[in-house]
């Protein structure tokens, strides 16, 4: 039988020799061009990184192709980034351009560094999950096609991080992204009274509802939902399979903007609602692609250098964000969850548009 608890392979065995030699002794880096980093160590040695885009959902053959390339140029060393890009790690500067040429020939986009749009962090969607309100890989592909140039160049005011999650569980951790694409349901789940008693823990189901819309019905070993208090988060379905929520007619996508994670300049912040609902329109989600592109373009032409999306919006004000992007403001934009009042304007300071 297999050994258990061996843990992952020791990362030290995976480091290219140039890293092993200069581990923790890096001096500075330069972005030689989009997608190409040079890190120089105290020793004077340099590490070259070539970053290539990936669809994340990759076949073993695709991985083998990556291995082939890495073996050809990088002595077999590579890594993936926290945004699922592939990084080829080289110590020989002369191999950089040939590597890039080969990547180009195989249609790997090289970029994602500096003031670019890097890969979109995303989730399972219809490919593997049971709660999605939209697909993940599909909208990502459609959007990346459209904003491809922002990946391979570095022309934006600052870097723009996009993430997608296919339901409110937010596995893509979209809640702090410059632009977040979030699948949402809009149908109140109907408990299936025949299945709830056998499949669900009533107290857990009741506790799962953020807005207290669910009441236990102990007599019938089931639950009831107060439609008015339900905002379709789907958490009850997560704990109780007998409360289906997916609905082709009403599932779709919402767009959120202005989040960030880094502590650079401003503190990390949550993304805020920009567009409450766009329809699921497979295979290429044109409404979503257009909406995101619009936001990027408006940002690109109005933000100052080094200003992340959220920093730009906070400087000019949300009033201005809505007027510049032409996105309609609705009562759905106004928070009504538990700390809602913190978002209400408690001042006469605002702009007319």
């Amino acid at each position: 039988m297999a050994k258990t608890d061996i843990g992952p392979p020791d990362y030290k065995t995976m480091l290219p020799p140039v890293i092993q030699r200069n581990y923790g002794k890096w001096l500075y880096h330069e972005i030689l061009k989009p997608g190409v980093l040079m890190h120089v160590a105290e020793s004077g040695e340099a590490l070259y990184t070539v970053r290539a885009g990936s669809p994340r959902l990759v076949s073993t053959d695709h991985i083998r192709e990556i291995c082939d390339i890495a073996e050809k140029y990088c002595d077999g060393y590579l890594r993936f980034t926290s945004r699922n890009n592939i990084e080829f790690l080289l110590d020989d500067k002369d191999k950089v351009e040939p590597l890039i040429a080969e990547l180009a020939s195989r249609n790997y986009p090289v970029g994602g560094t500096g003031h670019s749009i890097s890969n979109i962090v995303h989730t399972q969607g219809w490919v593997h999950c049971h709660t999605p309100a939209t697909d993940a890989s599909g909208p990502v592909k459609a959007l990346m096609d459209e904003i491809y140039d922002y990946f391979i160049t570095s022309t934006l005011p600052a870097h723009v991080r996009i993430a997608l999650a296919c339901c409110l569980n937010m596995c893509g951790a979209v809640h702090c992204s410059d632009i977040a694409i979030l699948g949402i349901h809009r149908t109140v789940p109907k408990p299936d009274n025949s299945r709830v008693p056998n499949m669900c823990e009533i107290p857990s189901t009741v506790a799962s509802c953020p807005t207290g819309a669910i009441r236990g019905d102990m007599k019938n070993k089931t639950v009831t939902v107060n439609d008015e208090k339900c905002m379709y988060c789907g958490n009850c379905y997560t704990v109780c399979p007998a409360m289906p929520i997916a609905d082709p007619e009403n599932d779709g996508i919402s767009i959120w903007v202005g989040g960030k994670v880094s502590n650079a300049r401003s503190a990390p912040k949550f993304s805020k609602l920009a567009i409450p609902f766009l329809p699921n329109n497979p295979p290429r989600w044109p409404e979503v692609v257009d909406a995101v592109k619009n936001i990027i373009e408006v940002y690109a032409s109005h933000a100052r250098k080094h200003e992340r999306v959220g920093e730009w919006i906070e400087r000019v004000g949300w009033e201005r964000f809505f007027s510049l992007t032409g996105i309609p403001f609705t009562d759905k934009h106004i928070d009504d969850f538990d700390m809602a009042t913190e978002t209400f304007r408690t001042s006469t300071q605002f702009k007319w548009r």
Partner: protein
Amino acid sequence: MEKSKTPLLDELEKGKWPSFVTDMKQAAQKSPMAEDLLSQLELSYKDKIGHWKHGGIVGVKGYGGGVIGRYSDRPDLFPNVQAFHTMRINHPTGWFYKTDALRNLCDVWDKHGSGLTNMHGSTGDAILLGTTTEHIQPCFDDLSAAGFDLGGSGSALRTPSACVGPGRCEWACIDSLDVCYNLTMEFQDKIHRPMFPYKFKIKVSACPNDCVASIARSDFSIIGTWKGKILINPAEVTAYASSDLDIQKEVCDLCPTKCMEWDSKELKIHDEDCTRCMHCINLMPKALRPGKEKGATILVGGKAPIVEGALLSWVIVPFIKLEPPYTELKELIERIQDWWDENAKSRERLGELIKRLGMRVFLRGVGLPAVPQMVKAPRSNPYVFFWPEDIKQEVK
């Protein structure tokens, strides 16, 4: 020409960005599972709805997690994905691979699964997408032989992850890779045998740029930082001054604390006011470096929205030195998990529990002192609890 069976998905092979559909088709050449997955996905594109049943509990012997069970709701149409479970493989820290390790992984997966993967999942695991119930144990056995182990799932410690840190980055204030690997090895049991009220995530970034988004995505965030002066290399400052960079406008004016002064010759930093945001260092990597006394800030509570709304992690230890074997850090983690495990309701994340019981109770529970670095501002409501020992007890 034969009519495509996946006209909708075919549309996603167009365009310049690499297409997952191409990868799925590639896998479908070899694997009937992948083929049925493709077809089922096409149906989802048509129906605008997922075609997986709820949940699934499958696993390997001796572990309580690491595999995500999944069953098709149309096994009639797609028998090869009737069962289509995902295996989460703990990635090598920092997502560094030598190709032979990767090839091993691919071989095992072609043998037991669909040949489709996510490199990587959002938590950091290498995700092996789709196998049958029967294949789980043998697949695990082969993985184990190849040096791989499962990652976390369920109410367990999830696979910790770390930024590239000292592996490549000049700003690393802590050895993010070693800390992460060390904790991963130390807590194998907690990863594989769910014992908590809910999931628990640890992420390590070696500086405040937080390249693994640890502050947003982990219950326990470890973020490198420093004390003391930012190291300035005046010669390189001069070099930047004559480059494209406008030091006043791009660096000083954007410093959040406005603690930098630039007179076109000398760059001064009032370090006592600096909040180590990294901006100036980010822009002038050759000229500026983090100060010498290095360590980490510990924050807890970060998570996605369900149930109580999303949380960003909160500072609970402004500064801690991190040297192997990281005893102080591990003890802190144990104390926190213990307090959480003892007090939480089912499916209550650490941050939610602290929110419910109060930071005051948490701090006392885990033995940490209150310091102003923990808050943006003190409370504004007058609903102040006093400890019984603060109050003159009435003798009644």
